[in-house]
């Protein structure tokens, strides 16, 4: 007797003689009927508990039995299931994607028809969830690598960054082969095309290195779109790391001609311009190699229009970031690790002037690898494309003042 032949099953697939003894079995009872419908249009009752999960395990108790039923659906439901990931939070998306994974695995093991054509159609619709589209792509890739490869050139501007990455990777491979074969001009053209579409740091570096060997001079700073023009003030006291949570004057007002009591004397704002290809803003340069100190860096960003953006920060010191006077996030972690785009902070740029303040903490460690007191920051669209139309920097004369940073 198959599972479907049983009149009712408990949440763990066993016959359930005593219905509704618990919430779990009640949920399972409500769901099993939906499971038996078996068509793509009918999975909504199974999907709903998975989309309802929230923070701290909220909804897990109902989601588990629903996942069990959902993952027993036929492969024909895959496009609808993947579509149900649209707008799902990260936790829900994992439940839903995992159910799709099991449906696919079971379908393949049983020799069932996998709806590849429908999955390709789903993949082509960029409005769908990036994770769901990636799942569709990988399903096609495993089934027919040549067909998947043929899809990649159309994904060079894909909003799903993993898909775009593979598309760029394909270009890099082709360019590399051209380079190896001595077709220099063609290789340069293809590398430059790849560079135009690349958003991942490792791919950008994988492109610029051969381009340099081919006599080209890619402008890394422009490619990344670093914010390199800053005002800096400090040091303030961070003895015992207590300055991180203390609001020094720049957190109350931005008055660029102001003079304040700092650590060891009066402090005032000065200029700090980064010349680094990788956007390093080195506070040690203007302030000296100090310990147990706080510095602030301030700049302004002018946008022609209101638009969504991301502030992307790399930093191995303690930091806080305010945008238009609102604290976005902060971490008091010192000297663990740093990389480009380590933190992504979504913001809404307003038309005209926007303010950006970075608080940077240095701690008491004296090891050689704890000298750094720096960060790197860029402003991109949500996909990582630098917003090059922005005008960054504080216009002279330095009379800017805001009620809040």
């Amino acid at each position, binding site marked *: 007797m198959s599972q479907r032949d049983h009149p009712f099953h408990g949440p*763990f697939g066993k016959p359930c003689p005593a219905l509704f003894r618990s919430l779990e079995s009640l949920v399972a009872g409500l769901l099993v009927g939906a499971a038996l419908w078996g068509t793509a249009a009918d999975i909504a009752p199974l999907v709903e508990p998975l989309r309802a999960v929230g923070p701290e*395990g909220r909804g*897990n108790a109902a989601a588990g039995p629903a996942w069990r039923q959902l*993952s027993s659906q036929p492969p024909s439901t895959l496009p609808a299931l993947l579509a149900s990931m649209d707008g799902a939070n990260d*936790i829900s998306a*994992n439940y839903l994607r995992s159910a799709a994974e099991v449906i696919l695995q079971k379908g393949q093991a049983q020799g069932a028809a996998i709806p590849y054509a429908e999955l390709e159609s789903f993949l082509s619709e960029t409005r769908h969830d990036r994770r769901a589209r990636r799942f569709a792509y990988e399903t096609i890739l495993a089934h027919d690598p040549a067909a998947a490869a043929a899809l990649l050139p159309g994904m060079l501007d894909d909003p799903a960054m993993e898909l775009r990455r593979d598309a760029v990777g394909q270009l890099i491979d082709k360019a590399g082969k051209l380079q190896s074969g001595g077709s220099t001009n063609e290789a340069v053209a293809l590398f430059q095309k790849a560079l135009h579409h690349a958003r991942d740091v490792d791919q950008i570096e994988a492109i610029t290195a051969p381009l340099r060997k081919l006599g080209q001079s890619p402008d890394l700073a422009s490619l990344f779109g670093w914010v390199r023009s800053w005002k800096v003030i400090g040091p303030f006291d961070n003895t015992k790391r207590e300055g991180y949570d203390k609001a020094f004057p720049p957190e109350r007002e931005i008055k660029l001609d102001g003079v304040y009591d700092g650590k060891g004397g009066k402090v005032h704002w000065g200029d700090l311009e980064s010349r680094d290809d990788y956007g390093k803003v080195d506070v040690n340069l203007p302030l000296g190699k100090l310990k147990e100190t706080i510095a602030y860096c301030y700049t302004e960003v002018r946008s022609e229009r209101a638009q969504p953006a991301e502030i992307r920060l790399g930093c*191995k010191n303690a930091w806080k970031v305010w945008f238009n006077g609102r604290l976005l996030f902060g*971490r008091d*972690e010192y000297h*663990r690790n740093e990389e480009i785009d380590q933190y992504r902070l979504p913001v809404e740029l307003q038309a005209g002037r926007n303010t950006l303040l970075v608080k940077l903490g240095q701690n008491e460690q004296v090891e050689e690898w704890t000298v750094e007191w720096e960060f790197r920051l860029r402003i991109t669209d949500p996909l990582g494309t630098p917003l090059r139309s922005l005008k960054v920097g504080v216009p002279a004369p330095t009379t800017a003042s805001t009620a809040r940073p």
Partner: protein
Amino acid sequence: MISSLHTRLLLPWVALLPLVADANWTQFRGPDGNGTLAGATLPSSLPADGGVAWKASLPGRGLSCPVTVGDKVFVTCSSGPRQTRLHVLCFRASDGTKLWERTVLATGRTMCHEKTCVAAPSPTTDGERVFALYSSNDLVCFDLDGNLLWFRGLTHDYPNASNSLGMSSSLVVAEGVLLAQVENDTESFAAGIDVRTGVNLWKLDRPKMANWCSPVVIRSAGRPTLFGLQSGKGLLAVEPKTGGTAWNYTEGASTVASSAVRAGVIYAPSHGITALEPGSPGQPPSQLWRSSQLRPGTPSPVVLEDRIYVMNDAGVLTAGELATGKRLWQLRLKGPFSSTPVAGANRLLAVNEKGLVQLVDLAKPEGEVVSEFDLGQTVLGTPSLTEGGVYIRSDAQLWKLRKP
């Protein structure tokens, strides 16, 4: 002497116990958290081929150790350009057949030092479920057949809980409560989580300092079971169901090597090794001894019979007397080491970072390496020992070394 001789005369890999919960390697360093498993032995020597029963390809790296339930072996991996693919795989122990594989996507930060990886914490099992935690603080629970029971994103819930070098604290489970110890410079906590639903039963603030060591379950006859949470501050013992403090040892401890437990006594990496015996409820533990001559590096201490073994990162293995902490002998193995050895019946098996398996005869007066076998792959994860063999996970494969 009789015991030693008896052991050497026994057939290698003697399986002494039937399949019961304790016969499973349920967590990092085994069910007792000391690198041994009751009834599980190691061979007297390794054959020329290392005794490889099978090996299976893995989809990504991992520092986590395999865990076992009956004829199933579970292992975790991470893969992808940013290690955002988090895998749990289940293999049939007898022949290495992959029974199932599940993937979830990281919701927390995956950045870590290049030596480690996102699949650094070891999974655990209560015999009905397998729980997997990753450096991104994603926590997932499957039943033994691969059905997803629940999923949590602990950094999703607590956004500053992460370490830019990576997290590695492994899970433990007792009395229906799963313990996740998530400690770092910015937002540290420990959560007691309902194994059935993944919901917090309790959550404690923990010291704001990076910590890579793992908690232990402290079990002893006649006393309530406790969780032991080690950090740079010391060792906090809490009741599994409530998170209530049972006692607190505050003299500091390692943030890398983890405590070992044997018969309710905790051998904590603190000022060398400090042996702590819990006393009355609410009272601090008694210090049985402290030895500055027993200094573990990254590998955690191993307790076997009447001895304790510690190893530094370079591979110097030190044997101590369990009752007193007196140093007995030292033996240099070929390092470097990240993983903790396993031991059984006068043998200790250690795998260095290059994948060289070294079998040590602990009955020799100064210890002696009696066999070596080169896996030829990077191994940073701790092996798992069962009655049927040893499981070793490299960066690319899961290996089973059989009994001869």
